[in-house]
């Protein structure tokens, strides 16, 4: 019995060892930091601005931190820094914001994990006179402003233009969404389909919106089935970052890289290999560094009182950040600023990005 038990202890120890062995492997790549955009505002006050992200330690928000650090570099009397919970947890994010309020920051840039959960703490922040700017939360209530990288319909049209051009404006195409209930994905593809029907009469939308459940394997299997059901399929527009990955794999395995155009939202880190084999033709996303930077710029201008907004309207000559690609010309709807800050990536420039 003793003997047997010791065997189990060894097995147990090995299991734990195997798992903890993995710990030492887990390390993150740090994105390289190209230079900052440079100062364009005159800042008189000394401001402390905290950017609160959904989660720290992932490539997307590491990249955003790069942008936040540029703000401190460009504006010496502004202290800009980034914080966030180590786990994707709404309650932890609220705690981070509370701690920052206790430290007496002047402004908060928040990318809420769950918009409704942070409403009370944002309300308190505003009552204490702290400026609140959010990102990726266009329905947030207790804010000064929100800033979005782009308007969803405009982005959908942008992807359709990229798809249509590569399809020579003719042939059958279909679209993927994460799920029929993902609001932004459906806004993108609805706008794209409507735009196609109005402008590209030789293109035909076939099938239905395909659901991938944000899983590249589901997208892959669905695409394989579409290839059988629609042998004349010539184009696909994806929405979830994993859609083009699954679709591209199916296209590559079928040897149809040159016949089928695949475009969609994704990140270079998960689509690079398929972009390099031309299975994916173009991906688009927004640069979190620029989004973080723009968020901080709005916070500075709101603190300085230099935002040119009167009665919720922008001045006629327009408003934007001339040195920030995609944010040169912002539009304002209610409390939400929209840029046109999508970044297109093809095999030409895929290696410039590491997230």
């Amino acid at each position, binding site marked *: 019995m003793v003997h047997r038990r010791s065997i189990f202890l060894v097995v147990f120890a090995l*299991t734990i060892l*195997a798992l903890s062995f993995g710990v030492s492997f887990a390390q993150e790549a740090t994105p390289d930091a190209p230079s900052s955009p440079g100062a364009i505002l005159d800042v008189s006050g000394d401001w402390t601005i905290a950017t609160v992200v959904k989660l720290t330690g992932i490539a997307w928000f590491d990249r955003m931190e790069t942008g936040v650090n540029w703000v401190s570099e460009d504006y010496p009397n502004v202290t800009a820094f980034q914080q966030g919970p180590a786990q994707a947890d709404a309650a932890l994010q609220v705690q981070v914001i509370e701690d920052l309020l206790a430290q007496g920051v002047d402004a908060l840039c928040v990318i809420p994990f769950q918009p409704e959960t942070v409403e009370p703490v944002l309300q308190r922040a505003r009552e204490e006179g702290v400026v609140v700017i959010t990102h990726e939360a266009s329905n947030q209530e207790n804010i000064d402003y929100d800033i979005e990288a782009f308007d969803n319909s405009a982005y959908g049209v942008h992807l359709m233009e990229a798809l249509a051009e590569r399809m020579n404006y003719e042939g059958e195409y279909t679209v993927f969404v994460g799920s029929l209930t993902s609001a932004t994905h459906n806004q993108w593809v609805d706008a794209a389909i409507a735009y196609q029907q109005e402008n590209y009469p030789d293109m035909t939308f076939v099938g239905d919106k395909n659901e991938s459940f944000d899983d590249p394997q589901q997208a892959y299997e669905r695409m394989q*089935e579409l290839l059988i059901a629609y042998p004349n399929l010539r184009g696909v527009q994806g929405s979830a970052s994993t859609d083009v990955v699954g679709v591209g794999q199916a296209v590559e395995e079928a040897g149809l890289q040159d016949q089928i155009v695949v475009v969609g939202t994704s990140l270079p880190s998960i689509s690079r290999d398929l972009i390099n084999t031309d299975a994916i033709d173009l991906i688009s996303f927004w640069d979190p560094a620029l989004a973080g930077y723009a968020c901080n710029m709005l916070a500075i201008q709101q603190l300085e009182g230099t935002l040119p907004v009167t009665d919720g309207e922008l001045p006629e000559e327009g408003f934007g950040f001339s040195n920030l690609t995609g944010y040169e010309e912002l539009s304002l709807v209610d409390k939400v600023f929209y840029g046109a800050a999508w970044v297109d990536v093809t095999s030409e420039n895929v290696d410039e990005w590491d997230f």
Partner: protein
Amino acid sequence: MATLRRLLARQEVIIALTIIILSIFIGLVNPSFFSIPNVFRILRSGIIVGMFAMGVLIVLISGGIDVSFPAIAVSAMYITVVFIRDTGIDSLVLSFVVAGLIGLALGLFNAFFIALFKLPTLIVTLGTLSLFRGLLLFFVGSQRIRIAEVSPVLSDLSRGNLITIDNPAGGVANLHIAFVFLVVLAVIVWLLLRYTMLGRAIYAMGGDLEAAERVGFNVRRTQFFIYGFVGLVAGITGIVYCSLSREADPFSIVGIELDVIAAVVLGGASIMGGRGTVVGTLLGVLLITLISSSLVLLGISSDWQRFVVGILIIIGTSIPVLQLRQRQRTQSAAQAV
């Protein structure tokens, strides 16, 4: 007539007939269903569920249940890929060995609680399902790793094909090499269940644990074998999964357990233990795969797809229950006479 009735009483025959009728129906709606590219596609999409099902079959026959195998598979897969990435040791054999050993170790961890503490198998494996996955996400990492960026060897495997033919509709159609893994595994499990004393022990345990122990089967040792084997199969399936999907995503695989268990039960294995065959299980896997991968061909809109899958699974799984009731009725009628 009697032969026909006896045939129809077999779950395998019922499932096979269902598959044939369903195929004819899909083929009538969309003739491209009966094409080699489509056959290859369906076989490939059954590989992962089929491999898992071989492990689950053994557990169900023995009267237990294991829901932790997806967590074992994803842990073995992700730790192995991280190991390859960080050490640079890129060997096909070694990755299978490492993943298999991790799977085996985690499977024995289950067996430890099941055999020695005699805890209910569902409770133990539900616990370890969260435990393994939680440890993986917390200690090892939560980021997706593209296989092409870390392992040329596994990347080659993901592009490996058993058969490649020209697709008349354009491009090519492939049968993935990983299909071999499923065939080999199925043969091993078939031999094990049919020709070994271990196989007899597994059936006996599922029939009646007490009786199996009394007639001299070493139940504890058999349980260690069963859960260790499921772990080993899960670990290897994990590596096959990452080469099929070309990435190691620590959030993947978990969630597949319901499909797998449904396929095994559909294939005639009794959830109470004691019954089940490899052929039936493979047919169950084929039926589930067929249903879930022909909805676009049938032209069913996305809104209805989940509904249709649900209905078909309910119909499929209720057949054996109705059969059993029919059989009992016939028996009691016979006794009354």
